[in-house]
């Protein structure tokens, strides 16, 4: 969540007055680092993953599960005790075996880093040092994730568990859902569903929430369509909304239509920023490669969002969507009515089509394959900031990108930071940059230039097990290597990426929806002389220009996630859905190779030892089958769990009992994974976790 400096946070009216100053200092800091770092070369491929947890309180005999708000205590305990390998942290290899060498490896690992998150019931953990690209090292990710979870658990109370569900199913439901309990309707969030104490008490977080609300002029509106089951009353009116509160001016919101029919209504940042996700950051060899990766990974965002879907429940109700993305987007949407286009522009500078948390709006590479038609023709930018960046020596495309990010106001400003501009820091730049939560983030080196240009891939939802989380992390790492090695071209118009992001929200979008995707990833014409292409190491700018260009619309078509991930041939053969016949219409010369076959082609071209290749294959197999429908997404599994539960009345209500059993199943899966003996005991009829094999197959 960025830098947690202490200080005096300004309330919105004061912060607003300083917004321009922060922006202009931020731009000067950006230019400073740009000039320092633009020539950086040959940085190694390093990468890191971030795993976020909910901390739940669960015991077998208690009918309720609660969110623990002891984040600060847990973090303190973790900070005070950096021993690894306490009881309970059984060392395991990815194949489930234990051995001495591995145990000592594990003890010699740098201690993982634990971070606070917005939600006071959340925790984030990252590896103690970044990962490299040695293939054997890729296999260390999963044990390291398990180690992190184990260490976290060791520093909690016996009945507290770090679990990786994206959201707590009954966050904001009437009654008690936190320990300790706090009443709702506090001064910062003014939420009628969650107390102020739901947020990390560090002044940054309540200020962030309060200033977003204040800037917006009302509470955030996080409305999710409710899933209509056979017994769901229709039209459905969220029964938990209280229309008779009169404590805060914002209590009028619901009386003014903030809670429409057939939507689950939520009114606080915690409903979005309290979601857990799986983020991966890659270091590029230089600026050019970083920009190339940013652009090429961008169209993959919605695909991976759909594939990792894990969020079918909000506030005790089944939603009609499967992913968290739009809820977070709305939970931090600070746009004013003028910016939203609800009122004519008078005080604000422009209408802004997207929340600060949204899919990317820019491509930033100077790649010659980037056709102007791919860019957003209506991109909102701050022209004076762009000019300042151009004058400072930045190229047009990157200046445009930052001039777009800098249309936003800084939300949290500490008065201490406004005394003088320190060009040896990047705090003001980061203030704006790190509150632009797009699905990709392009990260300049830090002020001391000690690390390289980085790209963060942010759309993926967290999965229940570390096996799955490692699988998706490693897959994304391999995809970046494939993109750079084969110089792949994933460009489609950026508006189509937005459209795909919406599509990814649909229930079971993996199997029921199609996504715009580029047909041909390769250059149209091969380099004329073989050896001559030795000079065109994939660097983006060195790429050959597209040969005679046709209409942009011909460059992409609709594809299922199965076809994108596994290729047309596999999709034809193994599609589990009635949509199978659609794929059969794809003519042979329009067949898509598939991302997994491309990864396999890459692995065929490098030296990988047998054991490593087998382990990587289990990861690829999980992803292959999730994409084809042979295995279920997490969202589908949770939905099914609820649907089959004896307490479920087919009325979309996820009761406390169902929630408890769901969390119990997840805790059980976690315990089983931590033991390192595989998931065997969870499978099969009479198994302890219903339909676990539909989620996981026989992996592990």
């Amino acid at each position: 969540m960025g830098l947690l400096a202490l200080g005096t946070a300004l309330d919105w009216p004061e912060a607003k007055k300083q917004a321009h100053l922060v922006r202009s200092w931020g731009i000067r800091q950006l230019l400073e680092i740009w000039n320092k770092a633009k020539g950086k070369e040959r940085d190694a491929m390093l990468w890191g993953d971030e795993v976020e947890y909910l901390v739940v309180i669960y015991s077998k005999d208690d009918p309720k599960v609660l969110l623990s708000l002891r984040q600060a205590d847990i973090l303190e305990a973790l900070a005070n005790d950096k021993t690894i390998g306490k009881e309970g942290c059984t060392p395991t290899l990815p194949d489930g075996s234990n051995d001495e060498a591995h145990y000592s490896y594990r003890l010699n690992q740098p201690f993982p880093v634990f971070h606070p998150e917005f939600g006071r019931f959340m925790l984030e953990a990252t590896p103690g040092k970044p990962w490299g690209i040695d293939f054997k090292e890729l296999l260390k990710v999963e044990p390291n994730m398990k180690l992190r979870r184990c260490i976290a658990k060791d520093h909690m109370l016996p009945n507290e568990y770090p679990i990786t569900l994206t959201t707590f199913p009954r966050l904001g439901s009437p009654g008690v859902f936190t320990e300790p309990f706090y009443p709702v309707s506090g001064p910062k969030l003014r939420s009628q569903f969650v107390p102020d104490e739901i947020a990390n008490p560090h002044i940054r977080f309540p200020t962030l929430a309060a200033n977003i609300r204040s800037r917006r002029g009302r509470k955030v509106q996080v409305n999710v369509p409710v899933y209509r089951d056979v017994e769901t009353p229709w039209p459905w009116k969220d029964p938990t909304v209280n229309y008779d509160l009169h404590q805060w001016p914002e209590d009028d919101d619901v009386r003014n239509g903030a809670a429409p029919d057939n939507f689950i209504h939520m009114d606080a940042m915690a409903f979005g920023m309290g979601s857990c996700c799986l983020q991966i950051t890659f270091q590029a060899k230089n600026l050019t490669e970083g920009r190339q990766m940013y652009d090429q990974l961008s169209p993959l965002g919605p695909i991976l969002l759909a594939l990792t879907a894990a969020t079918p429940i909000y506030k005790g109700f089944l939603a009609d969507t499967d992913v968290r993305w739009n809820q977070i987007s709305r939970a931090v949407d600070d746009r004013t009515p003028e910016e939203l286009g609800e009122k004519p522009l008078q005080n604000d500078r422009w209408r802004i089509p997207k929340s600060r948390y949204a899919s990317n709006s820019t491509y930033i590479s100077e790649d010659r394959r980037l056709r102007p038609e791919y860019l957003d023709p209506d991109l909102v930018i701050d022209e004076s900031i762009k000019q300042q960046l151009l004058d400072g020596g930045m190229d047009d495309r990157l200046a445009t990108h930052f001039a777009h990010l800098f249309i936003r106001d800084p939300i949290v400003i500490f008065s201490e930071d406004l005394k003088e501009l320190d060009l040896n820091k990047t705090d003001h730049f980061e203030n704006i940059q790190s509150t632009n939560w797009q699905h990709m983030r392009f990260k300049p080196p830090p002020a001391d230039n000690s690390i390289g240009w980085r790209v963060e891939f942010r759309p993926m939802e967290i999965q229940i097990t570390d096996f799955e989380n490692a699988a998706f992390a490693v897959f994304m790492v391999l995809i970046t290597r494939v993109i750079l090695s084969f110089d792949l071209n994933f460009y489609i118009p950026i508006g189509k990426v937005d459209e795909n992001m919406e599509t990814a929200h649909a229930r079971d979008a993996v199997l029921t929806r199609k996504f715009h995707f580029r047909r041909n990833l390769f250059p149209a014409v091969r380099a004329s002389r073989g050896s001559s292409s030795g000079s065109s190491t994939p660097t983006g700018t060195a790429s050959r220009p597209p040969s005679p260009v046709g209409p942009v619309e011909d460059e992409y078509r609709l594809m299922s996630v199965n076809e994108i991930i596994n290729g047309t041939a596999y999709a034809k053969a193994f599609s589990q859905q009635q949509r199978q016949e659609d794929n059969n219409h794809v003519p042979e010369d329009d067949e898509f190779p598939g991302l997994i076959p491309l990864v396999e082609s890459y692995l065929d071209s490098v030296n990988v030892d047998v054991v490593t290749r087998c382990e990587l294959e289990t990861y690829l197999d999980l992803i292959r089958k999730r994409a084809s429908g042979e295995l279920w997404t997490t969202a589908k599994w949770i939905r099914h769990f609820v649907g089959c539960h004896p307490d479920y009345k087919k009325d979309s209500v996820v009761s406390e009992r169902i929630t408890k059993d769901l969390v119990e199943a997840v805790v059980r899966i976690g315990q089983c994974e931590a033991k390192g003996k595989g998931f065997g005991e969870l499978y099969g009829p009479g198994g302890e976790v219903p339909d676990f094999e539909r989620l996981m197959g026989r992996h592990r």
Partner: protein
Amino acid sequence: MTKLILSTGNIVSGGPSIIRKPGAYRSNLELTNSLRSNFLAAQEEAQQQHQQLHGDDIADNNNVNNNDTSNGHGVHIDDDDTDANGTRGRPPASAWTAEEDGVLYVPRIDWSMAGLQEEPAQYDITAKLFFLPTDAPVSDRARYAREALDLVLKELRVPAVDLLIVSFPGMSFDGDCEWEADKINSRQGNDEDEIATWHAAIEGLYDAGLAKRIGLAEFGSEKLARFLKRVRVRPKVNQINLKNCCNVPPPLAQLAKEQGIELLVHSDCTDILPKGTLRELLGQGLGGAGILADTETGKGGLQGDLTPQWVVKYTAVVRDRGVIENKGYFAGAGLDGA
């Protein structure tokens, strides 16, 4: 006897020939597809140069005749557009191949474009040498190995490769059960030839520092054990092709562990360039390069019996970034004069 050197150039960003096709041995297809596309590219370039020199009558001709726009690139050849050499619209072989010292390079190689982007130390360079089934004496293999490795070093402009893997003819690692594969493997190949080749052709490259590590492909446990007893420089790597890659035969896993030999995975076919395939690639037929004479008429190109002798596959991977910068193949073939 004329010698032919075929090359693919860098195929890594060259398009679809790199894509794995389900169910097929990949290297086999990858090699033939990328040779074919490199030949086509070279011919196309030659044709363009020809047009620039001699006006663009051919282009006009094509524009008139090719209303079919299904193929926006590649070489358009009119079947009745026969030129002086009788090669049906292809540029003459001399326009896109080169003959030097009795060796015909198909296509011509522009060595001025060779090399890698960064210092050699930044790369992990692997070459895999396939000795193909020939009637030639085993003693010829030392020459093949030297030729193949020299081409790789010249192409990448590096003083040595990090790993040289040798693949012998007649070996496989097939079978539904890998135990069985290990057993069958024991009787494959020819121990004497392989050991003789290793002594005469491979150990020397290691001694000369041209290959920092040397390794084998497709050796099962028994064959490997016999091999290890009789060689001076021991292989550091054994590459195996496992269909279901998670079942390494335990005896092989055991032996490799004891002997410090790394077991790597590959998906290559041992007989990577069969004679018939090569004839098709270079012949007068559809999709052929028009280098060899028509088998029926004896016209249009080189005559005689063409035998593929060796193939070398090379890859250069940027070590700390995992990016494949260069990958390609050379193949050597002998032509017995008619």
